């Protein structure tokens, strides 16, 4: 069935909330899922998976305290819900750049659903919290074979690069986790691109923008299985109607045939 992007975002938000995601991360995860789907990057399966595979989702979205001011610290995301925590990692990257005046750097191990990094990075790229755009280079590796770079220019244009044999489908496959080496800066020349010569363009900004425009105008087609999983989670936020609440809603106790 064709869905509007707002429908996608709403069902994802409620699903994340129903699954126990922290307030605010649920809305950002939903925005991320809708953004990716709008750009022809399937996201609902990864989100549904991250929302259901943890006994305690809230714990899987929280890090132990300490060391986040240390630029050399490696963040272990191995037991975290990657689709949900992605915005927090991008936040930390931006904060490091903003506080230090140097390019922000971040290393993460065991990250799942890495494409969810893209929507918050594009958000900061298009118009950061201070109305000035940031640029990002998000280098991903799973083993030696699968390597990708998500690039976001100040202004918000995104593109995806991969090594010679890497198919974009690989970005949706690894549940073992990815290594992330991320850089964030204002100026493009501060986003150094060492070892990037072997990468090819997998999805360019133009194709991504065209997909987004098409999705906005025509709607999107979520895969039915993921949609059903998300709907089941979303139902958990609803409170069964009581007679008392029913009697106090709009239209109650009024004649409908007057």
């Amino acid at each position, binding site marked *: 069935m064709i869905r509007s992007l707002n429908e996608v975002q709403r069902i994802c938000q409620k699903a994340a909330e129903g699954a126990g995601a*922290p*307030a*605010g991360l649920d809305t950002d995860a939903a925005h991320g899922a809708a953004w990716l789907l709008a750009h022809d990057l399937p996201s609902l399966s990864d989100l549904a998976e991250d929302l259901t595979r943890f006994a305690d989702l809230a714990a899987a979205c929280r890090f132990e305290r300490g060391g986040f*001011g240390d630029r050399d610290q490696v963040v272990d995301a191995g037991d975290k819900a990657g689709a949900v925590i992605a915005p927090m990692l991008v936040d930390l990257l*931006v904060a490091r750049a903003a506080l230090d005046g140097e390019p922000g750097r971040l290393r993460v191990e065991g990250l799942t659903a890495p494409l969810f990094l893209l929507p918050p990075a594009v958000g900061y790229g298009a118009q950061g919290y201070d109305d000035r755009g940031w640029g990002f280079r998000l280098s991903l590796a799973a083993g030696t074979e699968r390597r990708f770079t998500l690039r976001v220019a100040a202004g918000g244009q995104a593109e995806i690069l991969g090594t010679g044999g890497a198919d974009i489908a690989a970005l949706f496959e690894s549940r073992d986790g990815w290594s992330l080496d991320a850089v964030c800066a204002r100026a493009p020349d501060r986003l150094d691109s060492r070892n990037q010569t072997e990468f090819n363009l997998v999805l360019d900004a133009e194709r991504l923008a065209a997909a987004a425009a098409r999705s906005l105008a025509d709607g999107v087609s979520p895969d039915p299985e993921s949609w059903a999983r998300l709907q089941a989670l979303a139902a958990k936020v609803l409170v069964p*109607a009581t007679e008392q609440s029913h009697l106090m809603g*709009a239209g109650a106790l009024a004649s409908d045939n007057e």
Partner: protein
Amino acid sequence: MTAATASASASTGEDAALELRPPDTVMRLARMGSFHQTRISFMRSLLRRIAQEDWRLTRARFDLDGDGYGTAVYRIDLPAGCCSLVAFSDELSPDERTDRVIAEKWDATFALVDGEPSDEAIARLRANVPKQEAGHVSARELVLSRANKSVRLFDHVVDCLAHGWQPAMDDIVRVGYLMRTTAVYGNGKFGLSDLENTFAGGLFSRPFEAELFTVYLIREFTLDLVEHIAAARKPDRAVRLAPDRRRALGIGNSTGLGMAPFLTFHPALIHRWMSARETAVARVLALAEAAPEKRSAFLALLARAIDHVREWSTQDARQAARTAKLQDELQGLHADLTDGAADLLTGPHPWRRLLDKVEAEGSLELQELTLSLMMEPYGELVDDLADRMTDPERGRLDPAMTLAALKSAIERNYGWALDIDFSASPAQHFFWYRSAEKEEPRLGERFTEPGAELETRLGVARDAAALHRVLSSGAWQDGESVAAFLLCEPQWRHMIKRFQLAEMTPYGEIRDNLLGEDCLPIDILRCKLSFFGAIKFDPKSDRWTRITMYQGAPGFDELDRGNADSWAFPVFTEVGDLHP
């Protein structure tokens, strides 16, 4: 940031020097629950736009049987393109007619469609639109709605017209509408066009503009419908509704708690609405003098408002008492301004002095109505603000903000919340939730009803106080970043975004505790509906109200630049049925 500078930061050019009423004064529930429509309310600005751009309406299809059942299509041509209202009128038995959210059938259902629909599209809509929430539409459709007849008036009007006479004005005014809508959906609901797509289409650009245009067209349909049925019933005798009767018939609406969370969930947008309204007020208050024609226009409107309030009927004891007091106050004010204090409007800074007077002597209803009236003669001064009421942006986090700065921001903008004792049960008496009944927002009593663990995020005051306690506990260092804090305490993400946004949007927050025992949701509904341009609020409890929309407004065929703003505070002369 002080309230004045914060407000001014949302303004541009000369407005930066204006002194706006502070958020601590404006954003209180009691005052918001006293708002009236203004020149920049959405229905008002929409009708101005229709007149200015000379939109054209064509009844492209009217396939209704003698009882008024069938399909109608109205095509509207705008400078930027065209859209169509597709209406389905169906037979409904009295036991199926309900305004409640549980309804599954309605007297009429509607879709506003981009362009003109093909026969194939109409067939698709026929299969889905009458089902409303249970159906599914496409991104070609901008708005989905439904309405039920006000049976008694509807039948009476048909009967009168069929017999060749006009229905009595007092019968019309007592109800005010032939149909009342029970929902008007937009922004991607049930497959509809996303708001961003609707705006990108170029036909609509203001908040709820497509939705309220749909309601205006529904009004046209209801008027055509009664005339059609009457003509079918008595072809030789039937007459059309007289223009004054047509104008007196608006569209009713039952509005419940579904509207209340909207104001809390969209702080940036609400800031835009409020700051536009307050800027309009401030522009008028800043005038050094009032020209004679402006004074005359104001006094004429004040006199009309007295009659308008007299015709404002409600069975609700609280509103009835307020309305009665307002009527007395308006009469007293009119007497003052035309007699004892006649020099008030001729002296310097007349509108400022007038506001000072009503603030000192009058109720909140009077104060807010006076502000609405003061704006009316100054269209050239305030109407442009209707274009400053859209905010498509989502809240962005400032991850580098230090916790010390965050704490200061909370103290600056939420000081009103920090004084509330949330350990006392009255402060957390209510919880807001989404009901399993079509996900309708509801309000429960925390200590007697189940479901509080699933409450929605309207406890802004409580959360501001709680986060302030965390930040004051010494557990975190002042210099640590919000980003680092949130990695360990992600449950605060939603509220921290909100508290950061409040630095730039001081009118974005209702400065009262929405969980408190004394919270009256009807105040929130009244505020939002006043921005729509609704009149004659008729609360049925403190949680839902009936209203009338477009009552007094010119119909599509007579709307022009000369009368587009003629219908503020409409008054209808009481006369009997007009027999030939």
